[in-house]
């Protein structure tokens, strides 16, 4: 499919320009109004026309900085706009992630897109509706409060013949009004004073509208970033060292000169890449190119044990303390029983199924980039810095890649493509190979967590002291990505913190401290394994440690683990409600863990865990079977209740929850990045297995809808309790307590012997 695009800058030079835009809604023809809101950092959010335009046929075009990552979120955003404007869903066209036309709404991440970006679009739409009603009031000679809107047609209540369509009121013209927009990115508050629709009147929000992007994904017609082609495009591949970044001591260009279609070996600083006429030639050249790399100045750790020692013994650069109350020293001195345990969570891959891909066309001091970044403006600005050109000279067009789960906040491949395009003066498409992505995926960081708890003579938890020691994200806005690093740009900070929620804050203990310590990882301008935000960053490990500890205490006190939790879940009624919804659906019967001992090799058990991620509440029950002779764990079923406030698209949300559950089972049972001093060991799917069909459990989901609340995130909270629920189910089945993820057969056998 040919991809045509026109910048709004060009558009603004004339009125009524016909635009053939590309989107997953298919090629659409639209007429846009003349506008002048372009600022350096995307469109000016205080100009209503920056957010949306209404064409003569009534089509609503929304210019959003939010992007579809395969979660269905752009469909949900379109529902929100359709609802607020009272137009049918099919009339809303989302122009998404184009830095020349979109408002910068921040990165698409952390399950904040509906919660924050959706509310921004809702309010911009409410402001637009208010203005349209004002115009209609004058045209129809009727006060606004006597008007009603049905599918984009305003009519007078009681006189349905008196009507006018949005397209006739405004089609092809600008709103020309200012709205309030304070703050930036996620935190921007848009037109907060404009009243939005009462949720009880919702017709589009709350419906399971099928996703607009899906049909073409089953036929090959959908255009991913991997499918973008532009005239004269060449193909590039990167050539990087096996472990940490280092300098190429020698590059033997003669090793590739006989490859048909070879164009150029690109060298800039420590960056090495190859450009060829065809993709296969580029792949062959990248494999054949002889490069001798210098010994990296920074050694890889010898293995995970060294990393956990490092986490334990290295001084934190930043402590985050979300909860600190009472007096722990006094409480522990009064405790009759004390518990203390350490939990280990490994580096894990995002594991994008399709390696990332971008096309760059750099011409002099201007550039066009097509890529799957989660942050179009962030990637544009990083490339501008790297190429030393102004950000406004770069036009970045978002094209969806494979699911990224946080990974494409660090859009390395777009930088690679830009460097190679500049070097050859032509557009270059760069796709990473599987081993590139496994090796250089900025992993979810390893975490080392300790929990101490004290219980008084009445069996009441009176002391809770939780500490998470985590590496930060080496890849963050402060730090350059791979290509930038290779041409000499230096980190400016130790990285972004790996979060602090999930350390037991949901429980109300009298004396309680939760601390998340950030251990420095970026050193000497380098890092041994790159790290970044992986879906629900840090919470899986923290909830694994805290929910395992709660379970351990309940078991020791011979109390049913649900009943025990309920004693302390008093801070927010939504938490016990989500827990009770889960256990009711799962058919939970009260009894303490572990289950009565089984006779054969196969032991069955059930476990529960509860989590609050960014105010979305989840509770999961896992049912497992453990083969005590082999240590094999089979997850038979996961039941999960989910409360993310107002639900925009129930089936879309269920799809997300199912995915989170299965990815959660995968991360709990299978996933661990292996490495030694010579480098990372798992560079393909055989050595880094992920869940496959025969390992997939049954899933049951309970959605709790709260129309009276704002919509909250659904893209990641439900992965959080899965690890802990499985660990607790293994304990229930066998009496063996798992302290280290993943729960491999070997670790289960060791725990059984302990």
């Amino acid at each position: 499919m040919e991809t045509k695009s026109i910048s709004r800058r060009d558009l603004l030079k004339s009125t009524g320009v016909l635009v053939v835009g590309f989107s997953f809604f298919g090629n659409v023809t639209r007429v846009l109004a003349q506008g002048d809101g372009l600022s350096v950092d995307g469109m000016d959010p205080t100009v209503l026309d920056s957010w949306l335009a209404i064409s003569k046929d009534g089509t609503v075009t929304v210019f959003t900085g939010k992007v579809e990552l395969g979660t269905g979120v752009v469909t949900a955003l379109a529902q929100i706009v359709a609802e607020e404007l009272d137009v049918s869903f099919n009339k809303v066209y989302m122009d998404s992630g184009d830095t020349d036309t979109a408002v910068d709404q921040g990165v698409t991440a952390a399950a904040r897109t509906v919660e924050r970006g959706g509310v921004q679009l809702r309010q911009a739409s409410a402001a637009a509706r208010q203005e349209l009603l004002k115009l209609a009031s004058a045209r129809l000679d009727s006060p606004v409060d006597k008007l009603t809107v049905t599918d984009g047609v305003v009519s007078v209540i009681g006189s349905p013949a008196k009507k006018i369509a949005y397209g006739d009121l405004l089609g092809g013209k600008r709103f020309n009004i200012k709205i309030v927009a304070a703050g930036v990115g996620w935190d921007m508050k848009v037109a907060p004073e404009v009243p939005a629709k009462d949720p009880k009147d919702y017709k589009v929000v709350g419906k399971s509208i099928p996703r607009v992007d899906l049909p073409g994904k089953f036929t090959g017609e959908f255009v991913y970033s991997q499918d973008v082609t532009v005239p004269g495009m060449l193909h590039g591949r990167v050539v990087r060292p096996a472990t940490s970044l280092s300098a190429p001591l020698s590059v033997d260009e003669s090793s590739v000169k006989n490859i048909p279609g070879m164009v150029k070996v690109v060298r800039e600083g420590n960056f090495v890449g190859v450009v060829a006429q065809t993709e296969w030639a580029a792949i062959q050249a990248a494999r054949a190119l002889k490069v001798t790399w210098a010994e990296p100045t920074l050694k890889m750790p010898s293995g995970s044990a060294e990393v956990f020692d490092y986490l334990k013994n290295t001084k934190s650069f930043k402590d985050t303390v979300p909860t600190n109350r009472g007096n722990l020293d006094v409480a522990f001195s009064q405790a009759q029983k004390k518990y203390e345990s350490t939990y280990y969570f490994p580096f894990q891959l995002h594991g994008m199924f399709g390696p990332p891909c971008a096309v760059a066309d750099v011409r002099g001091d201007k550039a066009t980039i097509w890529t799957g970044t989660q942050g179009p403006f962030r990637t544009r600005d990083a490339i501008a810095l790297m190429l030393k050109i102004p950000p406004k000279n770069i036009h970045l067009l978002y094209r969806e890649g494979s699911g990224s789960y946080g990974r494409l906040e660090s859009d390395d491949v777009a930088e690679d493509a830009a460097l190679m395009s500049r070097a050859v003066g032509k557009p270059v498409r760069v796709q990473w190979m599987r081993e590139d992505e496994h090796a250089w995926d900025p992993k979810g960081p390893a975490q080392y967590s300790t929990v101490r708890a004290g219980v008084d003579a009445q069996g009441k938890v009176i002391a809770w002291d939780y500490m998470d020691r985590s590496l930060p994200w080496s890849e963050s806005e402060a730090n350059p990505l791979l290509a930038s690093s290779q041409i000499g740009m230096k980190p400016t900070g130790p990285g972004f913190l790996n979060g602090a929620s999930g350390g037991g804050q949901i429980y109300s203990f009298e004396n309680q401290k939760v601390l998340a310590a950030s251990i420095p990882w970026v050193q000497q301008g380098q890092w041994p394994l790159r790290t970044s935000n992986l879906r629900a960053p840090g919470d899986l490990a923290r909830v694994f440690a805290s929910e395992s500890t709660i379970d351990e205490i309940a078991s020791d006190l011979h109390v049913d683990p649900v009943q025990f939790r309920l004693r302390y879940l008093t801070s927010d009624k939504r938490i016990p409600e989500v827990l009770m919804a889960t256990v009711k659906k799962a058919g939970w019967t009260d009894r303490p863990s572990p289950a009565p001992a089984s006779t054969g090799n196969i032991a069955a058990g059930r476990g529960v865990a509860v989590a609050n991620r960014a105010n979305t509440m989840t509770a999961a029950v896992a049912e497992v079977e453990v083969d005590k002779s082999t240590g094999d764990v089979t997850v038979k079923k996961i039941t999960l209740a989910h409360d993310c406030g107002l639900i925009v698209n129930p089936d879309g949300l269920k799809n997300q929850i199912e995915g989170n559950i299965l990815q959660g089972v995968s991360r709990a049972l299978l996933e661990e990045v292996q490495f030694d001093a010579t480098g990372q060991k798992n560079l393909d799917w055989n050595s880094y297995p992920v869940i496959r069909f025969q390992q997939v459990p049954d899933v049951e989901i309970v959605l709790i809808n709260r129309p009276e609340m704002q919509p909250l995130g659904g893209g990641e909270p439900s992965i959080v309790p899965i690890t802990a629920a499985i660990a607790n189910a293994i304990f229930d089945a066998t009496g063996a307590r798992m302290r280290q993820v993943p729960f491999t057969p070997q670790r289960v056998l060791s725990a059984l012997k302990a």
Partner: protein
Amino acid sequence: MARISLKVNGKSRVVETDPDTPLLYVLRGNLELHGPRFGCGLGQCGACTVMVDSNTVRSCMLPVSAAENKSVTTLEGLGSVARPHAIQAAFVEEQAAQCGFCMNGMVMGAKALLDKNPHPTVSDIKKSLNSYICRCGTHLRVIRAIQRVSNSSVKA
């Protein structure tokens, strides 16, 4: 370089290419068929699956010369958004994808399974698709979509 004749989605095509080029790059590059995708290049994930004659193959591993004069069917050969194959329609009905990048393999794998076994059990489906990876975790929807085809009167 060599001229290689292929029959792709029912049409005769001739491509000028290095005969060792994996079929995937010929389909995507020379013939602009983007249904089959690059996932691993190692035959481990299923993203590049096509049918050569009546067998599924991982086109990232198969030299184009090995498909010479054979009948190649890609995802595009099954149907389109306007005229979907029953399997593609069932996947839409079940909303059986998230990012969708693995869906080429899922749909082609489902086609191969249903061609041989029109009424598979859940266990049959799991076994048959076990070599296809989905990272988003849409397995249960894929299973339901295949059951939907199997249960419908429409011939797959």
